[in-house]
């Protein structure tokens, strides 16, 4: 009896302690959370693309919290709106790091916005995860590039078009919006095509302004260029809103994908959602992820997304997958380092490997780029892409293009002895210069 009584007392006191712990837990968490910055435009021209990424990040943070947070602490998202205004990106980044003391920032879409925040991140020593395909020619200690470098998108896409499956294309139109990403990508592609033996007169390069809407002249020029008796294809780096009128004009002027296919690097499920895709069936896009990819991870991701956004018509896209990979990598690196201190996390990031949504693993390389598969898809009548080609293995992001004279000798390795983003192997010195 006595023994029993003592057991009961022990149990009682234990439960009191437990209850006390439970009660103190939320109080402790409230002033001890890990803050994560989200730097995506919620207004202005880029809101169309970037708002989705903000929502995707909120979903990922919610899910991580449901799993118990990180290092025993809850994650807290800090959302700011840089309003598609490039200098404002730098100001908001500074605000996130200095005022809100975030542990890492996920953000930016256009290359100009990324370039505008770079000095802030290196000065205040924080981490930026950049989720969009870009032109390469950059590798910064504080930035992790989870989108595709040109060799993870543009080069395999052109290879596909040159192959027999892609139609053995001999004549090329490089059509782009006039800013840094299309210009650099087209420079790389031009050098690559010439290295493959394409004559200069078989390449036509054309640029249009942001938000261009009257494509009549350009489309008829493409038609004219395509009537030289050689198989012709368009490689499009046309960005954002300008794509919808471009595809409408293609459809109206009767350019079919079987005759002149358009391979796009900036058109995803999101852009097609605003379009009647029936006349576009067969036009192509190169990405590292398609919503139509049939894997259990992707099915779960789409279901979670629909539940989170409360709309089962909303599509998923490649930059969302990039944030998914980037966020999970960061979580893993923080767990590995045991702290959110940016210096330790940056070192811990290299070599971290997490599942991607296309049925494999993506790994962070020493050049702060990741490994991904490259998928080529054809537009279907339902606005989705059907994968028609997939690289056999994973492709490692190559930051300094091998096809540009200024950058072919440069490499990047942020591991201890070298710790350099632009090491020139020809001169053996750190600090080489790329093309931009």
């Amino acid at each position, binding site marked *: 009896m006595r023994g029993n009584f003592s057991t009961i007392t022990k149990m009682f006191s234990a439960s009191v302690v437990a209850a006390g712990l439970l009660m103190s837990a939320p109080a402790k968490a409230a002033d001890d959370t890990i803050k994560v910055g989200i730097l995506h435009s919620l207004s202005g021209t880029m*809101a*169309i693309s970037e708002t989705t990424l903000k929502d995707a990040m909120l979903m990922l943070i919610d899910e991580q919290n449901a799993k118990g947070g990180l290092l025993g602490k809850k994650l807290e998202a800090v959302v700011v709106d840089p309003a598609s205004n490039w200098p404002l990106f730098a100001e908001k980044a500074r605000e996130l790091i200095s005022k809100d003391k975030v542990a890492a920032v996920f953000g930016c879409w256009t290359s100009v916005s990324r370039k505008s925040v770079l000095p802030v991140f290196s000065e205040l020593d924080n981490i930026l995860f950049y989720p969009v395909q870009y032109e390469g020619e950059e590798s910064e200690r504080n930035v992790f590039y989870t989108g595709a470098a040109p060799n993870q998108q543009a080069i395999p896409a052109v290879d596909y078009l040159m192959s027999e*499956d892609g139609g053995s294309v001999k004549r090329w139109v490089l059509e782009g919006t006039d800013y840094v990403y299309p210009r650099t990508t087209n420079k790389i592609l031009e050098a690559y095509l010439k290295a493959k033996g394409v004559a200069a007169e078989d390449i036509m390069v054309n640029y249009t302004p942001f938000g261009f809407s009257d494509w*009549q002249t350009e489309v008829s020029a493409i038609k004219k260029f395509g009537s030289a*008796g050689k198989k012709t294809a368009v490689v499009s780096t046309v960005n954002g809103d300008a794509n919808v009128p471009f595809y409408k004009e293609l459809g109206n002027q009767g350019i079919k994908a079987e005759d002149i296919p358009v391979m796009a690097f900036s058109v995803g499920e999101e852009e097609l959602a605003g379009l009647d895709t029936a006349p576009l069936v067969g036009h192509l896009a190169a990405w590292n992820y398609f919503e139509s990819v049939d894997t259990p991870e992707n099915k779960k991701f789409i279901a979670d997304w629909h539940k989170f956004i409360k709309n089962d018509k909303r599509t998923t896209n490649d930059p969302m997958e990039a944030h998914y990979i980037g966020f999970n990598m960061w979580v893993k690196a923080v767990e590995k380092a045991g702290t959110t201190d940016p210096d330790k996390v940056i070192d811990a990031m290299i070599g971290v490997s997490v599942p991607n949504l296309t049925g494999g693993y993506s790994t962070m390389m020493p050049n702060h780029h990741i490994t991904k598969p490259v998928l080529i898809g054809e537009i279907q009548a339902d606005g989705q892409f059907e994968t028609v080609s997939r690289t056999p293995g994973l492709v490692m992001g190559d930051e300094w293009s091998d096809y540009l004279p200024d950058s072919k000798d440069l490499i990047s390795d942020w591991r201890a002895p070298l710790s350099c983003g632009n090491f020139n192997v020809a001169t053996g010195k750190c600090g080489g210069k790329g093309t931009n």
Partner: protein
Amino acid sequence: MNLFRAIGLTLLFLLATLSSSGASEADLRGIIAKFATAKGFSEIGAVVHELAAIGDPAVERPLAALADGNLYVRKVDSLVFAGKEAGETVQLSDPLSGEASGEAAKDDITKIKVNNTLRRVIRDALGTLTLGAKDPAVRIAAADTMFKTPDAANIGPLDTAIANESVASVKALLEQARAASVLVSDRPDADKLAAVALIGARGDRDAVSLLTSVEANSADAVKQAATAAIANINSTLAFWDAGQNIWYGISLGSVLLLAAIGLAITFGVMGVINMAHGEMVMLGAYTTFVVQQVIRTSFPDLFDWSLVIALPLAFLVSALVGLIIERGVIRFLYGRPLETLLATWGVSLILQQAVRSIFGPTNQEVGNPSWMSGSFNVGQLAITWNRLWILVFALTVFAVLLYVMKRTPWGLQMRAVTANRRMAASMGIRTPWVDALTFALGSGIAGIAGVALSQIDNVSPNLGRGYIIDSFMVVVFGGVGNLWGTLVGAFSLGIVNKFLEPYAGAVLGKIVVLVLIILFIQKRPRGLFALKGRAVEA
């Protein structure tokens, strides 16, 4: 003549017997079953070739289904079916007869994938098979396909088809397709020269494309003939190119006119620097979207009428918002242009963000009714229907507006208030109401411009942004306060822009136009058609 007909009939009969005896249904099913095991595009392509080689018109159904991505393999028994998606399930039917054979869940069947190369192979195969189709449009499509993909083996079937053809225009196309096939065959040079002449007479880009490859692959007389024919076609095409630039310019001009015409009232007539003008256009486009959504869900048959239904609604929505803005903000700011500019700029941001919150930041799909899709040819000039209708629409709106301003009592009051407000008020005109209604009219017209622009541009909250600068440019260039100035301004800017674009590129072209306008305004600060008289000084 009778003799020809007899020969033709015999051939037709022969063809019919040949095709019916070509292969039994079991053979066809055997080949179709191979789709289930074919791996990769090249193997599927091989099966397509095998099917097409049989030459039985019955293979048209499975091949067309394959090209449209509607051919499936059932996982349990590896049987091939044609299918039609219906939600989460697929309605299956027999690939040859088209008889319904139940339905299957999407997970239980695999779609046979096609890519562009395969689609082209199928299109070519169907081209040969559909030469004898009843519908002339199908025969024209077949002739067109065969012209673009010439093959020496096509000459025989084409000869038969030409002999049977009764429609002259289709016959001409078939003969051109035959000529194209002759050029890639090993027929004597005399035949080829005749073919070059025939194709040269066709005179379009496809002919140039074909002749260029002939020029590269043949010798002597044929090569020279091809070179001469290409030069000939190119000189005619250069003429058409100029015509095309003018048409593109007119079309761009009509878009500028539509965007600017509402502003010609609010800014031109009333003198309000209305930065929220673009958002009125955007509201019109979103009204179209909402109308189409309702039609899609409730009255799918009315889809072709959606734009007509949207027009009055868009006018009302934008006019109402315009009225609220005038009564709520602008009326306190008359005569203070800087404050008006900032206030309307703020209103435009509010409207954008409101639409973004309600509809989301992404583009909304506004469909083109069937009469707004596709294009037709005038000579070598391809004119797209949507651009043509927008031109007609812009001119109609302009004419109606001109009538309202010049011929109605309301227009008279509007002009009186603009010319001399105090005098008009003394005459008993309620100037505040005239102001409000004029602003509402300008906004409403911007709204119906939005209906038209939704057909060629993105429907997103940023829609208005793209047009505001151009609209002001047109109104200032044309002359503030003059509707005719807006018309002439819009079309001249459109045409100059489109003539510069092929030479200077779109980016530089736009810069050159801006520089030209700056120079022009230096010379004539009041624009093309300046208002004269006391009103200007007021």
